[in-house]
């Protein structure tokens, strides 16, 4: 059932690719670069965020004013920070773009099953990146301290409070005490910047098993994304809501559909159910790579066994090491000479790290010395098939 659904989704994803490939050359298909695009948006966010950080004051009395000062809103006018409005717009719209492309990245890699074998680690770190990004985004809306921020704080407090036993403690830990205390905004500022740094640690984990990661999109898409963000921030300026009141929070929410979706859900379900839903989604997301323990027959040719190095033939030429897309091959100093003539004088020996091998066989194609084999599909098996095909 799930397998059939996944198959259907795979076909839809790939036909979407075909459709886009008709518009763009395949080298520039933006869906092939969702990872690079997220990295681009993250860089833009960090740079514009540093700019905003220089002017932002995390206190109830000054936070709103400092944001108004950055953007040159009414009391300041031309005395505001030059281009502050544009930078703030960039920060806002790049964040929206970021969440869009990481969701695309998530769904695309889910539907094309790129979480098999040892690729579960990029998947897990990717889930964490997703959760962190959402958290940072919501924090950012609280920092402005307008009416929306006040409402968000109230809703978050209610939702956390709905967790049995630890709820109240969690809420005070997050907000620095019961209700809105003076600690709230400094803490939010730290939770906005700190996890953004943690994103880079997680990104390292995301990339560590990947050789030649596509970190940046093609130049065309870099320019297009930057241009789109810049244009949006000029055409639709990012503005604050009115200043937060001291009384009860407002009862309506100005929604950013990309980050504040869970808060919209609060209109329809109780906070307790929202917590349950969030936990289920995250736990299920972490479970996705382990969901299909397929039998050997179902996997067929794709489960050919971990690549084996044939010690006698390996010449230590490093070709497999350079070509392995998952960094699964390391070169070690050769403990003894090889057997064949080419392997006599070798200095290095290739070793396959079994925990990283995805059984794709790319190293077999890379090796000109027949020193690597997939156990379930040996070279002589392939040659046998070729001969059979030629005979009939």
């Amino acid at each position, binding site marked *: 059932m799930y397998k059939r659904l996944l198959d259907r989704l795979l076909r839809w994803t790939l036909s979407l*690719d075909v459709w886009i490939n008709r518009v763009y050359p395949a080298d520039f298909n933006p869906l092939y670069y969702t990872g690079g695009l997220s990295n681009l948006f993250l860089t833009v966010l960090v740079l514009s965020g540093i700019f905003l950080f220089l002017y932002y004051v995390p206190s109830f009395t000054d936070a709103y004013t400092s944001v108004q000062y950055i953007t040159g809103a009414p009391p300041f006018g031309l005395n505001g920070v030059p281009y502050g409005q544009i930078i703030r717009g960039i920060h806002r719209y790049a964040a929206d773009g970021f969440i869009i492309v990481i969701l695309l990245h998530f769904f695309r890699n889910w539907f094309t099953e790129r979480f098999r074998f040892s690729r579960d680690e990029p998947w897990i770190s990717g889930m964490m990146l997703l959760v962190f990004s959402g958290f940072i985004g919501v924090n950012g809306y609280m920092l402005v301290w307008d009416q929306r921020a006040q409402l968000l704080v109230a809703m978050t407090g209610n939702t956390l409070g709905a967790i049995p036993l630890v709820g109240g403690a969690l809420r005070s830990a997050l907000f620095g005490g019961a209700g809105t205390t003076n600690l709230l905004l400094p803490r939010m500022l730290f939770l906005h910047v700190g996890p953004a740094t943690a994103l880079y640690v997680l990104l390292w984990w995301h990339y560590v098993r990947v050789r030649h990661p596509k970190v940046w999109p093609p130049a065309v898409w870099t320019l297009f994304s930057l241009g789109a963000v810049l244009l949006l921030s000029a055409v639709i300026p990012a503005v604050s809501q009115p200043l937060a009141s001291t009384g009860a929070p407002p009862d309506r929410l100005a929604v950013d559909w990309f980050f504040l979706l869970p808060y919209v859900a609060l209109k329809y379900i109780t906070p307790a159910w929202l917590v349950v839903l969030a936990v289920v989604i995250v736990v299920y997301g972490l479970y996705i790579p382990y969901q299909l323990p397929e039998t050997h027959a179902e996997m067929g040719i794709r489960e050919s066994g971990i690549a084996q190095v044939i010690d006698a033939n390996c010449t230590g030429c490093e070709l497999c090491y350079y070509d392995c897309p998952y960094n699964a091959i390391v070169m070690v100093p050769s403990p003894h000479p090889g057997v064949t003539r080419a392997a006599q004088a070798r200095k290095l020996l290739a070793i396959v790290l079994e925990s990283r091998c995805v059984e*794709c066989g790319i190293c077999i*194609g890379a090796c000109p010395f027949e020193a690597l084999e*997939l156990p379930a599909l040996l070279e002589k098996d392939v040659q046998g098939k*070729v001969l059979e095909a*030629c*005979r009939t």
Partner: protein
Amino acid sequence: MRDLPNVTLIQVPCSGFVRPAWLEFALRNGADGAFVCGCPLGDCFNRLGNNLIADRVVQMRRRLERQKIQPDRVATIFFGLHDRAEFTTAVREFSDRVAALPAPPPPAVRRPAAGPASPAAAQGAPAAAAQGAPAAAAGSPAPQAVVEGSPDEGRPDAPAGEGEA
């Protein structure tokens, strides 16, 4: 591949798995042409496999040229399993191109016994393979397959036949 009866598919885990030597092996053993099919370029399931095999086949074509084998007998075709019609068209084009080539040169005299089965393949009529397994369109995210195409032109691969210049 039911509509292309003279093409046989061999499934492999990833197009990057294919050693160019195997394509040459196929050519030497009676196939008229051989191509590797992989995921669309830029979207390899295993990240880099199709780019690698594309490069390797380009290098191999140069090697074949030196050996007086027409390099057009090997090719790479990159399609996902989502456009079957275009894939079939591409294979048919390749097949027609190979068919239009002049006959291959006689097997090198220097090595009389090329391979264990080569006499059979060489004597046997056109090395055409009736084909089952449209496996390409069924299983994996992209139909990775090394294919030995051999359009049957009714021209026997005579071992000592008309050598083309």
